[in-house]
């Protein structure tokens, strides 16, 4: 029996009926081949509208459904569900967009109606070739991989672990903590970063549900939502984590220097010990030192082995090699954070060539009570600065570097100003473009700073130099800036300048993105599934992004996202199963010649070559149905379900069939 198509035309109140001659369109539809019945209704998406379709399907009058109404992005699901309820495969339905792409955008009624007729003819022809598709489900492994052990990863991992789910937390550095561990205070509440972070780090280290892999990197990710296979490289620490008790004898006696011990204050900036065997900082988790091969005398010159001699636990092992661990997880959370922009590329700011020009990260370390200056703000020569400039937007909001706003600099610049005022008698200048104090308590913090005798100059700093004019400026930096509120170029001598550098995508983020089959945008950050409705999800099911991996953001937003992602993961785990794309591509083995044209076209690595059968095969669980391989297959051995050649040819013919 030939296919019987039911055509349903929606008036959408006057949204469609006001511009399209419904009667004419219905009359046209009736004459099309395979059309069994045509109905029109005020609102097809309403219950009575849906019931029209349902009763026709249930009465067996039709076996294909075409609804001419709004965009499929609006109501495709609604009508698919109607089909399902009526016991008909939802893929036997197709939609004609005569609202968004017709009645709403064309002025003339005659041409709108004509266009609607063409679109409808295309849908009807397409409908004839539609094929029922099976819904597919995959089981979700309840274990989760969190990549990155900064505050984002810590929060996400703890949320999941507390809910009783297993987590593997992989951190590239020897300790978790990330950037937050380097901070002294956090804005705008000025609470001590270590005081709020350290307990959480300790929890991570001790949690029964968390397998912490520090000093480790994800090497490979294969598989798909619910079933990812992970391979992690555990880099060699040269210290046996099971034996070490973190006594500290090794780094006290180590003659090697990872951070120069000589030199000025700024050259010696460090959070942890400066020796070759070191702890990144004293609260590190795990509290196990690591040997820096580059500066270790034994690795470089072949002798020393002092740490080995002083270690009472015999934990030092110079022969340790990188090892690999493989495991499976159901979901992945990318929490890789950021790296600070390197301002030395902006030559006119003199970073790296002029003394006393510091980046914000260096300034944070200097402020940190456990750092090498003991939290004191000092010039390179060890004296206290009398004046400090804080330059905003270094590398951010700048077409030459990053167009985006890094979102945190204004606030940490204010925090710096406050800390300087608290710790020194220095004068503080903030050079800003705009002050963006948009968070809870942020504007109030700015207000507070205004009362702390901090100067604000609105203007982008043009140059930082040593062009001193007078004797008392001789050790100073000269900042030239246009004060745009006054309308004059100012020349300000300062003892020290802090550059508020942009937050950049973390080094290696592209690699992680590629492994997870997610896209990065122009700015280098991972593209979320939807900027508003899916900010922590990605186009790849089971892969989530939190914190700066998605875009620059501050700690509260990062933590909120981390909890959002962990809740999304929990929702997946609790479901136990997930429905995956039914409209995938399929290789017909009997037609595949094994030419391998398609093999590296798949962004999801869903296509593999079966060496025995000499044919390519698609892992349908990985396939997202983009159809790139289908268009490329020179022998049409690959079909795109729901978008196959026959369906699209029928649409083309329908669109162009003369009326």
């Amino acid at each position: 029996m030939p296919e019987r198509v039911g055509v349903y035309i929606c008036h959408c109140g006057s949204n469609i009926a006001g511009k399209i001659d419904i009667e004419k369109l219905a009359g046209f539809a009736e004459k099309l081949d395979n059309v069994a019945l045509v109905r029109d209704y005020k609102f097809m998406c309403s219950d009575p509208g849906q019931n029209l379709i349902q009763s026709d399907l249930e009465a067996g009058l039709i076996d294909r459904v075409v609804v001419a109404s709004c965009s499929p992005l609006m109501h495709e699901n609604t009508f698919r569900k109607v089909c399902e309820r009526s016991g008909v495969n939802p893929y036997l339905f197709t939609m004609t967009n005569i609202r968004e792409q017709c009645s709403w955008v064309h002025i003339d009624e005659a041409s709108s109606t004509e266009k609607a007729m063409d679109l409808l003819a295309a849908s009807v022809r397409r409908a004839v070739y539609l094929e029922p598709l099976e819904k597919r489900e995959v089981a979700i492994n309840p274990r989760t991989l969190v990549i990155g052990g900064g505050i984002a990863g810590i929060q996400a991992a703890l949320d999941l672990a507390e809910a009783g789910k297993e987590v593997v937390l992989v951190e590239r550095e020897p300790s978790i903590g990330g950037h937050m561990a380097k901070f002294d205070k956090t804005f705008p509440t000025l609470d001590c970063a270590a005081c709020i972070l350290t307990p959480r780090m300790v929890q991570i280290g001790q949690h029964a549900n968390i397998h912490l892999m520090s000093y480790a990197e994800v090497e490979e990710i294969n598989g798909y939502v619910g079933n990812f296979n992970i391979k992690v490289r555990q880099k060699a620490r040269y210290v046996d984590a099971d034996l070490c008790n973190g006594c500290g004898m090794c780094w006290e006696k180590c003659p090697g220097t990872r951070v120069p011990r000589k030199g000025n204050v700024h050259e010696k900036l460090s959070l942890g010990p400066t020796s070759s065997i070191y702890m990144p900082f004293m609260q590190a988790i795990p509290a196990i030192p690591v040997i820096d091969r580059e500066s270790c005398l034994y690795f470089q010159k072949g002798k020393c082995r002092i740490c080995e001699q002083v270690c009472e636990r015999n934990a030092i092992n110079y022969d340790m090699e990188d090892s690999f661990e493989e495991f499976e997880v159901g979901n992945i959370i990318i929490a890789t954070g950021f790296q600070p922009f390197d301002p030395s590329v902006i030559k006119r700011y003199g970073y790296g060539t002029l003394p006393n020009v510091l980046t914000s990260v260096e300034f944070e370390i200097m402020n940190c009570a456990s750092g090498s200056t003991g939290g004191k703000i000092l010039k390179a020569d060890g004296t206290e600065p009398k004046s400090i400039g804080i330059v905003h937007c270094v590398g951010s909001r700048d077409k030459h570097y990053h167009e985006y706003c890094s979102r945190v600099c204004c606030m940490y610049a204010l925090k710096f100003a406050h800390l300087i005022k608290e710790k020194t008698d220095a004068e503080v200048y903030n050079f800003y473009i705009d002050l963006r104090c948009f968070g809870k308590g942020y504007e109030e913090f700015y207000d507070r700073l205004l009362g702390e005798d901090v100067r604000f100059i609105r203007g982008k700093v043009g140059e930082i130099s040593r062009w001193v004019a007078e004797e008392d400026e001789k050790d100073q930096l000269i900042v030239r800036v246009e004060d745009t509120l006054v309308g004059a170029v100012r020349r300000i001598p300062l003892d020290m300048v802090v550059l508020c550098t942009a937050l950049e995508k973390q080094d290696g983020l592209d690699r992680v993105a590629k492994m997870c089959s997610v896209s990065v945008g122009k700015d280098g950050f991972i593209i979320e599934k939807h900027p508003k409705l899916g900010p922590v999800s990605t186009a790849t099911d089971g892969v989530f992004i939190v914190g700066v991996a998605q875009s620059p953001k501050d700690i509260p937003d990062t933590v909120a996202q981390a909890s959002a992602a962990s809740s999304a993961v929990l929702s997946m785990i609790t479901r136990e199963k997930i429905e995956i794309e039914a409209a995938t591509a399929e290789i017909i083995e009997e037609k595949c010649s094994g030419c391998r044209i398609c093999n590296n076209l798949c962004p999801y690595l869903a296509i593999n070559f079966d060496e025995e059968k000499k044919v390519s095969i698609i892992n349908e669980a990985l396939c997202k149905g983009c159809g790139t391989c289908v268009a490329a297959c020179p022998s049409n051995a690959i079909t795109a379900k729901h978008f196959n050649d026959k369906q699209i040819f029928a649409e083309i013919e329908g669109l162009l069939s003369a009326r």
Partner: protein
Amino acid sequence: MKLKVGIYWGAACGGCDVAILDTHEKLLDIAAKMDIYLWPIALDFKYDDVKKMEDGYLDAAIYSGAIRNSENEEIAILLRKKSKVMIALGACAHLGGIPGLANFYTRDEMLKRIYIDSESTINEEGVIPLESWNVKEGELDLPRFYNTVKTLDQVVDVEYYIPGCPPVPLQIYSALSLIWDDMLPPVGSVIGAGDKALCESCPRVKEEKTISEFKRIQQVLPDPEKCFLEQGLVCLGAATRSGCGARCIKSGVPCRGCYGPLDDVPDLGIKMLSAIASVLEPKEEKEIDDVLDTIVDPLRTFHRFSMPASILRRKKE
């Protein structure tokens, strides 16, 4: 009962007929199974003999060659009438073949080049062949030279296709044996060839493909073990039906698609274009252009044998 068969050639080179002869001793089997009622290259039957047959008298007509002129079409129509099954033999009848390359030109452009501009022809009056010519004894006529070369199935219904330029002799034999064994597949099928693309029977090692430059065969010494396409040599094997035994490939030259497209591929050339473009390396427009610059004469390469059978058939006038 022996089958009654007519063999004819339209715009062909005779290679298909020779391929039938090249079945060697199998020819004896063919002769045992079939009586031949027309075969201009080998036997002396005239058109009149065919016209005198009852309609449907022949069990099969095997037609090689493209439809290049009205005589080709006329005999195709005649044979169609006189036989139960029509078989297109070889690339020309199947796809238009090499004569189909004329579809990049018009009839007038062709005739001018051949009869007037030809370096070896003295034709000061610019005479081109006439369709009829009165001599004092009477009227002579020649077939009309067509503007557009057609495939056999564009002028008559065709039941089966035996592809190739020329078809592999053994494949012809096995295709013919389907007739006498009464095992013919559904009408419209390609017989005497494979169901997959040539890569299936190509002995070269195939890997993932990324092409950053195309080369011409004289510019490189190709690695005999490796896929041509991966070495930057345009090869149509991936889009071409197998069955030839990879004879070109084994002789060290890439495939040009004489066996035609696979089932459900409406346009071999355009499909190959898609496949090749898909595996280019660059992403930037300028770099893509640079790579594409290295493909010489793309359309006539992709449509070497199949222009008349492609969707657009010919160059628009």
